[in-house]
């Protein structure tokens, strides 16, 4: 079982993310994160399982999941490449527009130098790319002590914090 950063701590990864093409036949037992399309096609069956989460690829927005968010324990946002920054806006929308309180997890090309921004946009869980040290990545959460803008964790911009 791999490791994941959740709420600033390294813990065992309890979730398995499944790619679209591995979803033939029987699903694995235990916590699984399925693609949006698979979720939409099998929504009722998956909802009754209770241990299923959904991941969004770039181009798939939180609004596509709007009606299901209350029932989901976790939404993962996948970064096929770290340079594709759509996921930052998705995380922010999940938190501020839809008030999603569950885990928002970054998966894929997730690296130390992006973690600080990701946290500010509402991610609280990070599956750091496997070939990189998760311990070192954790340090990325502390890159800055100063932020000008408000963010998901501190909605007030610096000029309103008093």
């Amino acid at each position, binding site marked *: 079982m791999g490791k994941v950063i959740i709420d600033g701590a390294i813990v065992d990864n309890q979730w398995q993310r499944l790619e679209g093409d591995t979803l033939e036949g029987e699903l694995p037992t235990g916590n699984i994160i399925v693609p949006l399309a698979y979720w939409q096609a099998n929504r009722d069956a998956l909802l009754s399982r209770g241990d299923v989460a959904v991941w969004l690829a770039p181009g798939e927005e939180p609004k596509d999941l709007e009606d299901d968010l209350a029932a989901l324990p976790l939404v993962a946002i996948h970064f096929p490449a*770290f340079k*594709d920054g759509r996921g930052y806006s998705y995380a922010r929308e999940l938190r501020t527009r839809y008030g999603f309180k569950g885990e928002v997890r970054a998966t894929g090309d997730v690296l130390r130098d992006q973690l600080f*921004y990701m946290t500010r946009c509402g991610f609280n869980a990070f599956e750091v790319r496997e070939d990189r040290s998760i311990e070192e990545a954790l340090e990325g959460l502390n*890159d*800055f002590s*100063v*932020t000008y803008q408000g963010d998901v964790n501190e909605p007030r911009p610096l000029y309103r914090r008093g």
Partner: protein
Amino acid sequence: MYVYQEYDQRLLEERVAQYRDQTRRFLANELSEDEFLALRLQNGLYIQRYAPMLRISVPYGLLASRQLRRLAHIVRTYDKGFCHVSTRQNIQLNWPSVEEVPDILAELADVQMHAIQTSGNCIRNITTDEFAGVNPKEIEDPRPWCEIIRQWSTFNPEFAYLPRKFKIAVNAVPDADPALIGVHDIGVQLVHGANGETGFQVWAGGGLGRTPMTGAIIGEFVPWQDLLAYLESILRVYNKYGNRDNKYKARIKILVKALGAEKYRELVEQEFAELKGGEMTLTAEEVARIKGCFTAPDYQSVDTAALDAKLVEDKAFSRWFHTNTRAHKQAGYRAVTLTLKRTGRVPGDISDEQLEAVADLADKYSFGELRNSHQQNMVLSDVAANDLYDLWKALDALGFATPNLGLLTDIVACPGGDLCALANAKSIPVAESIQRRFDDMDYVHDLGPLDLNISGCMNACGHHHIGHIGILGVDKKGKEFYQVTLGGRGDKLSRVGEKMGPSFESEEITDVVEKIIKFYVEKRLENEPFIDTYERIGMDPFKERIYG
């Protein structure tokens, strides 16, 4: 200028530490080339043809003399003793080493400077009129709003990995576009509402580069309190829907054009409806705090009698005065442009010793501040009229008093193929060749206002699209060619020029410019500037003369 608080300084220092560690990990092979590329670009570091290039941020072009002296020290210690003023009002070093960049950043941080977001697919340096704050035509000083936008955009967590680079400019002059807002990703025009309250007309989707176009008005009147919420709304729509598959179609201009301004506005309004009135709303206290950093210096009452006498008795001084200095908000003061365009000098280049000399002049004559202009010149913005003669003498000795501001030989040119890895062709030798051809200053003055811009490739760092005459370097089977555009503007309004026809070889281009100029002289009405003649008679007669 903006006064750094403890937290602003701490942020810079944390940035230096972060970047130092990123560099260390890259050199230790813990970061791949591609991973480091995105990180170093967000810090203005390019790997160029012969060496890296480091672009140092100069927010809205404003510099203090102590910062100039530090730049002088840096270019002497870490570079070859000169730097370059860019068309985004920034400063570029052409020969630093990757290993030493963290040390350069630490030196910069000491004087409240940095290289944050000077490149990469993020929000770049905010630019404005180089005469901001002293321009008698502006409705309000735009610099506080630039600073407010700067802070919002600095390390904005949501917009660090946009589809493409993103440039914002602010203008406060009605009926003119000295900040080129029409050709920016976002242009912010200060306006006053019916009751005199400050607001902003917000443009989006302009840009130069491969597909040049002017932007569309997205926000007719955004109240000042909502400025950041509105900008954030525009950026969020772009971040979500901008093209990520093809970097040549990734700028916001392509998205605005594809959706149409109406649809883009609708999407922005949806976002804005959520943000409006929220925590992002600007407070009167914060705006007052920032404005308090841009108050007028301690102007004195100035007797201009001595100046008037000098203007009569010294013709060279008078020519410089009328060409390189301009009217000021404050009676008895002028804004002086230092032209970095003497023939034989790379446009925009300045040496360490010159930087120090200019810093001294800024201290002596202009309250210790100066500005970079997007035409690659520098400005001493607050010079008392009775100091102008002495200042002119000093600038003349430095080679910064060439009286060609806004004239044909005040050429804007990117570093081009001599230095830049992206370039298709050289720019600097073309600029020099044209300057040498037009070496008769009387003739250049007789021609009147004329913007000539040269870019070495379609990335358009030399802003060739908005030159009255634009020259673009293109590559044809490994040979350097130059395409000419006419009728671009970056003065009263921003407008993209029109291609004249097939491109020219490098040996021909200066002759072509001369033919264009001669044809203009034949056709012009009395006192008619080039651009007006062009607009009156159109492209066809020019085409016929050149290709016919």
